[in-house]
């Protein structure tokens, strides 16, 4: 099992969600996050005082899938989140040791 963490532009979240749902995957966790990479921040001005805002708003999606499904998820997410400009985000894939469904006690891939 693998966990896929996807950081995308906030306005792309609906497209990415649908692309993942179209693969028949059910369930995800979504968080509003801030951070920076190559895109850099922006300038904000309040009563003539300029502030450099380094942390940009992004949306993070976390899903856990069986290992063999990872390539198709990556493909679908890239296609749906792509604008081609700096700041489209990143995808991280990490191994998952165990999953438990709290209600039934099922474990492993059945619990995903």
């Amino acid at each position, binding site marked *: 099992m693998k966990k896929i963490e996807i950081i995308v532009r906030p306005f792309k979240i609906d497209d990415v969600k649908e692309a993942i749902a179209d693969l028949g995957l059910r369930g995800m966790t979504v968080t509003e996050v801030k951070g920076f990479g190559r895109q850099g921040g922006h300038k*904000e001005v309040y*009563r003539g005082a300029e502030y450099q805002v380094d942390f940009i708003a992004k949306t993070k999606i976390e899903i856990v899938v069986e290992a063999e499904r990872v390539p198709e998820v990556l493909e679908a997410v890239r296609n749906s989140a792509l604008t081609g400009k700096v700041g489209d985000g990143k995808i991280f894939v990490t191994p998952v040791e165990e999953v438990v469904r709290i209600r039934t006690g099922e474990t492993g891939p059945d619990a995903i």
Partner: protein
Amino acid sequence: MNAADTSFILICSALVMFMTPGLALFYAGMARSKNVLGTIMQSFVMLGLVSIIWAVIGYTLAFGDDIGGFIGGMNFFALDGVGMDTLNSPADNLPHLLFMVFQGMFAVITPALITGAFAERMKFKSLLIFSSLWIIVVYAPMCHWVWGGGWMGERGALDFAGGAVVHMSSGAAALAACLVIGKRKGYGKQSFIPHNLPMTLLGAGILWFGWFGFNAGSALAANGVAANAFVTTHLAAAAGLLGWLLVEGIHGGKPTTLGAASGAVAGLVAITPAAGFVTPMAAILIGFGGGIICYGGILLKSKFKYDDSLDVVGIHGLGGTWGALATGLFASVGAEGLFYGNPEQLWIQLESVICTWGYCFVVSWILLKVIDATVGLRVTEDEEIIGLDVAEHSEAGYQL
């Protein structure tokens, strides 16, 4: 007694009361989220504190029998002789109690205006002590000088609704306050970004709405002067809004919502001393000038390196000063200014500006120094980092 005037001023009193919670929101939106309640509270508590002080002693110091042109006597102490009829009322068309409470609403908002200067770092206890004493030794005398039969009014200074009494006085006290209390921790290094500008815009809207009571009500009658003051107030706010946006654009930025709100308030401040004395077209010039001058005013603090957190000096101090001088230029309704052949008026206005700034700055500075040396003005460094909400009030504005 006049029933129409009485009903009008009753409503105006309520409108002016509404400005203080409006100001609380206006200020709190510009603070950081950890200080949202602390900032709101510094204004809102004045509705409790100053209302009582005013009824017991403030009113008589401002409107009691004149003593040497400086202060009122104690004949109205604890509202003695202030009743439902017009007996002894400074406005012979209004119940004395109504005149008292209308004036009381002005007294409530004035120390609340000062709080913007020391937002996010003053001890609540010290705020209560400072505001109580300030009403007695600064506001009540100022009010007496201008409206209570004191020397400034006798000299012929024009202040229709409180350019000197409310705005310059709070601006001068604000300057004293941010000099005595010092900068916020991290000022100039960290970002002090407003945490909720929609809240600030709502507050500005409430202020604009309440200002009709403030200025039109200062005619103290339901008549043409009130209508003129209503129109001049509205047009000055409108012109202030546009003036600020214009100068923001010229200064290389984009038109901001905070700029629109600030410009409207700047226009309202500027027209306050002039509202009943100028024409609507003059009000547009005064408001527009207010927007531009106050934009310059907020840039002063970075130049002179003082931390006037929410720009009380820049907007109320400078806006009130411009308004007082502009009254000496543009007055044409019931008084004449420089442009209407009376240069003497501008001179009298300048004198009132200098005396107001001088008196209010010096006395506020002394008060603050004394409080700082005894109970202390500032919260501790740890408390400042945690924020006033938890440190001073044991609550948080937002739960998530």
